[in-house]
C-alpha cells in the first residue's frame, strides 16, 4: 500500500481525498491491512472458501413478472430526466 495505490483506488471508487490527507490515509490503510493480514497465518489449504457467513442457501424466485410500470415515479426522483430518459452529462465525445 503506497500513495500511488491510494490515488488509484480513490479514483476507481470515485472518492475524493482532501489535499494533504493522502499521507495519513496511506498510513491508516497500511495499518488496517497489516492487522487483517494476521488472518493469513492460519492454514486454510483444506478449507472451502466462504462466500457468505450465513450457513444457508438462497431462496429463489419463480420466473414471473411482478413489477409495475414505475416510469413516472422513478424519473421524478432522478437528479435530471426528461419524459422518457434519465439524463446524465454526455459520457462519450
Amino acid at each position, binding site marked *: 500500500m503506497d500513495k500511488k495505490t491510494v490515488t488509484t483506488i480513490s479514483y476507481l471508487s470515485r472518492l475524493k481525498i482532501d489535499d494533504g490527507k493522502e499521507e495519513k490515509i496511506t498510513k491508516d490503510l497500511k495499518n488496517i491491512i497489516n492487522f487483517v493480514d494476521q488472518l493469513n497465518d492460519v492454514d486454510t489449504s483444506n478449507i472451502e472458501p466462504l462466500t457468505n457467513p450465513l450457513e444457508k442457501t438462497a431462496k429463489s424466485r419463480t*420466473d414471473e413478472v411482478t413489477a409495475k410500470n414505475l416510469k413516472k415515479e422513478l424519473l421524478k426522483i432522478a437528479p435530471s430526466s426528461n419524459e422518457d430518459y434519465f*439524463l446524465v452529462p454526455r459520457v462519450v465525445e
Partner: protein
Amino acid sequence: MSWETVIGLEIHAQLSTKSKLFSGGSTKFGAEPNTHVDLIDMGLPGVLPVANKEAFYKAIRFGLATGANINQTSSFDRKNYFYPDLPKGYQITQMTKPIVEKGSIKITVDNSEKIINITRAHLEEDAGKSIHDLFEGETGVDLNRAGTPLLEIVSEPEISNAKEAVAYFKAIRQLVTFLDICDGNMAQGSMRCDVNVSIKKSDDKELGTRAELKNINSFKFIEKAINYEIERQIKVIESGESVVQETRLYDSEKNETRSMRSKEEANDYRYFPCPDLLPVVISNKELQEIKNNLPELPEEKEHRYVKEINLEESEAKIISSSKTMANMFEEASTKTDDAKLVAKWLVGDVSALLNKDNIDIDESNLTSENFGILIERISDSTISGKIAKSVLEEVWKSGSNVDKIIETKGLIQIQDESVLEEIAKKVVESNPSQVTAYKGGKDKLFGFFVGQVMKETQGKANPQTVNDILKNILD
C-alpha cells in the same frame, strides 16, 4: 517465420426468461423506455435481489448439452465499475463459482471438424442502455434492459482464424436456440460477442498480448473485425513496436478497430463476493429433471433424419442447421406421406430464396404454418409443383396465406380430364405442321405440345396427365 493467430470468444446470450435475473421486472424487448424497471433494477437503497431459478435451469441446459460440469452450488460476485447505465455501480456476476465449467462444442469449417473447449458459462445481469445521440450535451439512460439475465459463454483460446470464430459463434447460436434458452436474435442484441485476438510466431510457446474487440453483433462483422485486427497487430509488431493489451471498438462503416479506453483508466473491477446473495443450490432432483427434459439437439436430429426418414446427409444437415427450419420440416411432414418432398422444397426452393436475399429463415415471410399448407396443397394435387413455386415466391414477398393466393389467383390444378383433352385437341389441330414433323420422327416435338397445353392452362394442368392425353391423341 509465419504468424499464428489465437482467438478466444466471450459470447453473451440473453436468456429467454420472462422476468429479470434478480427482480420481477419484465425482459420483453422493445418496450417504451424505463417502463420495465423494478426498484431492484434501479439499485435503490434497501432492496434485496432474489435469483430467478429459471435462469439457472436454462444455464444448466447449456452445460448439459456441451458435456460440461454443472456446479450445483454456485455463487455471485460484484464486478465494480462506474457507468451511467449501471445504476448500482457494480454488476452482479459469477466470478469464482460459475454455474457451468469445462464444456466443449464441435465446429465444422470447410468440411473438417474441430472441437472448441468452453472454459466456463456463467450467469450475470445485463446493464441498461445509453443513448448518446438524441440529446444535446447529455446522455439518456434507459434501464429496461438492466438486470436481464445473460449467460456469458467463454471459449478457450483455441480458435485459429476468423472463419473458425464465425463457425463457433454459429454453433453456439444454433445450440442455444435448439435448447430454447435464447432466441438468438442478433439484431435485437440477444446475442453479442467480445473477441480476444492475439498473434504469435508459430514456434512461440507463449501467447502474444491480446486485444479485446467489444460487442460485435453480426457474423459478417466478426470475420471482418478479426481479419482487420490480425493485420493491424502484424504491422505493429513488424514495425518494432508491441501490441498493447486494450479494448478496441470495431467500426463497421470504416472497417477498422479503434482503441476505446485511455491507458490511465486501467480496468480493475475489484471483484468480491456479493453480500446480498447466498449461494444458489441446485438439487439432484432438479438436475435430473432438466436432464430428462433436454430437447433433441441438432446433431441428433440430423442423424434421425438420415436413419429414419432416409434423407440425404446433405439435406439433413441443412434442415437441422436451424431450429426454425427443423420445425418447419417436422410440421410440414405431418401434412404429407412424403417427407422427402418436404425436404426437397426446403433444401431446394426455400434455401435458394434465402441465399438470394442473404437472410435467415427466421427473417423471412415464410411461416411454418403457411409452408405446411403449401406442402399439403402439392401433396393433394390442388396445385402443380410449378404453380407451387410461384405461390412460394408470392408468400416470400407478401407473407399472404397460401390458400388465399391459390384462390384469388385461380391457381387450382385442372383435375377434369375432359377439359384437358379439349385443350390438347385444340393445340394439336392448330399446329398441323408440327404434328406432321412429329409423326415423321421428330420425337423432341412432344415437349412442344406439352408446353403449349401448359401455356393454355396457365400452368394449372398436371404435367403427367397432359403427357398421357397427348400420347393418346398423337400416337
